[in-house]
């Protein structure tokens, strides 16, 4: 089995990251009853004897002593990371894995990317190398950040390029939180566009998510829970939004519930890498099968059934409903409607008590209502992990490489243009050393080119499938 390292950057990135580690620990605790450090756990955790001073404490087999997350926490303000280090997860993180500063990036991509980038380059590199050395076979970096701010957006994307240069063979999966329409950061369009260029060029796969969708999903769950449906009971052990048994106590903030959804996404995405199953899907296979063109690597995710995201137990509806829901626009983690756009490829990652025949049957059932690009009519990638999410019998994560991401990018570009035309706030960026207007123009043309690629694919929608003329051979 292989290992992965999580790099959480900025406030958003660290808060989500924290939720992920919390859930991962609880999941492994539920599955690994004997407390033996096995290959599944080692994919995301190290086993350390904390009595040994210095570096020599790593143990590769045997009983679990002290688990340390394979994570690097980066933030240019101290608040969030300090809170983590004082919280219940403090022992999970190695103090050597942190990089913090005091002043923050001021919601300015240029500060995060250029200023802090060059300031902390060596430190970041050193910590990355260290965590890579601690892995037997490092396969993937997971980067978690938001697009609209300064640190996550700027420094987060700076480190993408670094990862590509230093570890070219290791996959870079990026979970990016895009700004919603009602975003409280005025300069978020600038930050997002500047960050998009880096994502286009240096990421292997991007999972775009927006806050509005997360919020809508939470509302839906609340509605389900509070409507007093028959048989609804609070589950003591399942993981999620907020409740008894969770390590995070403060669940008054709405972001907690939303962060948990993203954490669940990462949990399910990596389940096939962490646990055994009859149809395993390696992380490298996600990239190989879902990314037919290097720049079109944006995957829209959906998690079903919704109630696996809540600490409630609703009598399980038919399995087929889970599959149908995965394609509905209400269940996507981005505001997007894959059903009415064009699929380039689709991955279905199932957990729990589901048979391959169920998978096949549902794919056949749903295929007629979905449109796939002409040369990839059978573009389905499936995986089965035998371990379900804690407290539930099954769950499904769908990843769609679909032109439905286009509207998000187009709206982003429009919001950017509105600001840029007036040159509003531009001076904050241009006064940073290394920033010029050309950075902006290059970034926006990178985005335009991307939108154009999606447009070209959309143009082929609804056209009859034609087989292209084959090579003719003189016999």
């Amino acid at each position: 089995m292989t290992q992965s390292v999580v790099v959480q950057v900025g406030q958003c990135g660290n808060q989500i990251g924290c939720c992920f580690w919390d859930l991962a620990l609880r999941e492994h605790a539920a599955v690994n009853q004997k407390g033996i450090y096995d290959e599944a756990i080692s994919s995301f955790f190290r086993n350390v004897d904390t009595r040994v001073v210095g570096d020599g404490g790593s143990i590769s087999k045997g009983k679990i002593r002290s688990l340390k997350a394979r994570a690097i926490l980066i933030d240019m303000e101290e608040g969030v990371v300090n809170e983590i280090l004082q919280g219940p997860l403090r022992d999970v993180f190695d103090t050597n894995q942190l990089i913090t500063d005091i002043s923050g990036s001021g919601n300015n991509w240029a500060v995060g990317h250029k200023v802090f980038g060059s300031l902390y380059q060596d430190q970041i590199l050193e910590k990355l190398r260290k965590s890579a050395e601690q892995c037997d076979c490092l396969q993937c970096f997971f980067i978690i950040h938001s697009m609209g701010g300064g640190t996550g957006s700027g420094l987060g994307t700076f480190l993408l390029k670094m990862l590509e240069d230093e570890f070219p063979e290791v996959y870079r999966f990026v979970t990016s939180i895009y700004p919603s329409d009602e975003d409280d950061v005025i300069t978020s369009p600038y930050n997002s566009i500047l960050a998009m260029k880096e994502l286009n060029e240096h990421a292997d796969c991007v999972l775009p998510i927006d806050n509005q969708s997360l919020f809508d999903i939470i509302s839906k769950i609340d509605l389900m829970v509070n409507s007093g449906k028959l048989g609804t009971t609070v589950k003591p052990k399942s993981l999620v939004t907020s409740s008894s048994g969770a390590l995070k106590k403060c669940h008054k903030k709405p972001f907690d519930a939303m962060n948990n959804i993203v954490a669940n996404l990462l949990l399910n995405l990596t389940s096939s890498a962490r646990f055994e199953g009859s149809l395993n899907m390696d992380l490298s296979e996600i990239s190989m099968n879902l990314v037919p063109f290097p720049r079109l690597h944006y995957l829209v995710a959906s998690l079903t059934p919704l109630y696996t995201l809540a600490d409630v137990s609703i009598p399980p509806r038919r399995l087929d409903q889970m599959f149908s829901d995965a394609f509905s626009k209400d269940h996507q983690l981005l505001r997007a409607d894959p059903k009415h756009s064009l699929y380039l490829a689709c991955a279905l990652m199932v957990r729990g008590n589901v048979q391959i025949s169920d998978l096949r049957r549902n794919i056949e059932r749903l295929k007629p209502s979905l449109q796939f690009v002409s040369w990839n009519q059978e573009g389905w990638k499936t995986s089965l992990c035998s371990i379900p999410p804690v407290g539930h019998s099954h769950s499904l994560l769908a990843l769609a490489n679909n032109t439905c991401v286009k509207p998000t990018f187009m709206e982003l570009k429009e919001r950017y243009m509105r600001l840029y035309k007036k040159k509003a706030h531009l001076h904050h960026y241009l006064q940073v050393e290394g920033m010029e207007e050309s950075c902006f123009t290059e970034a926006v043309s990178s985005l335009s080119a991307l939108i154009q690629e999606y447009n070209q694919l959309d143009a082929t929608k609804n056209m009859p499938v034609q087989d292209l003329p084959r090579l003719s051979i003189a016999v």
Partner: protein
Amino acid sequence: MSIVTVQLGQCGNQIGFEVFDALLRDSHSSQGLCSKRENEAYQTSCKERFFSEEENGVPIARAVLVDMEPKVINQTLSKAAQSGQWKYGKHACFCQKQGSGNNWAYGYSVHGPRHEESIMNLIQKEVEKCDSFSGFFIIMSMAGGTGSGLGAFVTQNLQDQYPNSLKMNQIIWPYGTGEVWTYTICKNLFFFFTGDLMEHLVAHPEFKMLSVRNIPHMSENSLAYSTFTWAGLLKHLRQMLISNAKMEEGIDWQVRPPLSGLPPLGKMSLSKDLHFNTSIANLVILRGKDVQSADVEGFKDPALYTSWLEPVNAFNVWKTQRAFSKYEKSAVLVSNSQFLVKPLDMIVKKAWNMFASKAYIHQYTKFGIEEEDFLDSFTLLEQVIASYCNL
């Protein structure tokens, strides 16, 4: 006359296990109507070919297991050991930690050269254990990264290093176009590798795709309730050949060979369903009771074949009284014919559509496979399809 098996990737290893298991069970099954002496000769011969003896008499499979991730190999090794009847050699496997990511280029260009020496050494050791080595049996799938890519690399290497020994690749088609035949593999494995017969089946280097059909298609549990005659079995088998049927069920009895003297109705059209399957050469293997009385004249009809080979060379038959497993009578047809044209054509069509749209190409060029390499492969395959079509 020993054979070394190379199992590559998840599919290759899982199937390889089934083959050795079935071989040994066949060898241990009742002698039926064979004489004791004949039976013992059969058992010894079978064992010698595929297993070597060691210590406490537990046969060790003459096999090398290769995979780029550890899970399947571990499962395969333990399943074999659990059977108690046989096992794999302790040091017969080569394994890495990270797979090939469903990428042929990765399997071929990265894993291949990186692990060439280790893998070839393992194979060499296994070959040296054989008193009289006759060839390789390579099991791999086509659709993945390791079996497909690394499998191609290893096959090439074997061709270079052992140019005079026979190599047979058992390939597994992607879902939807073919099936897997483990029983038939082991049945005819026993007889293969006698050079001259292979020469006839594979008369021309451009035509070396063999397909295997076996009958009866019945689970061993139902056998007690059925009886078969050789006449019945052979009639079915012949029609399966002519009409290109995969299974006994649903054979199309409408298809007939062309009247002798007349050329077959037009060239084989890929779109027509009703067509006649022309053969280059066929081999029928019969096992079981009263096998000497089985009449194979139907297979000698020149109308079934192209005109290249003398009819006496185009068709061969092997017979043995020693039954296979619990089947009182069984027949296997190994055919060099147009059987595989349609599935091959389907796959080339899908791949070409993808290639023409340049989809996924960057995943391969990343590892050194260029567009020209793709074009070369397409050209080659189109040639094979055209050649077989024009038989």
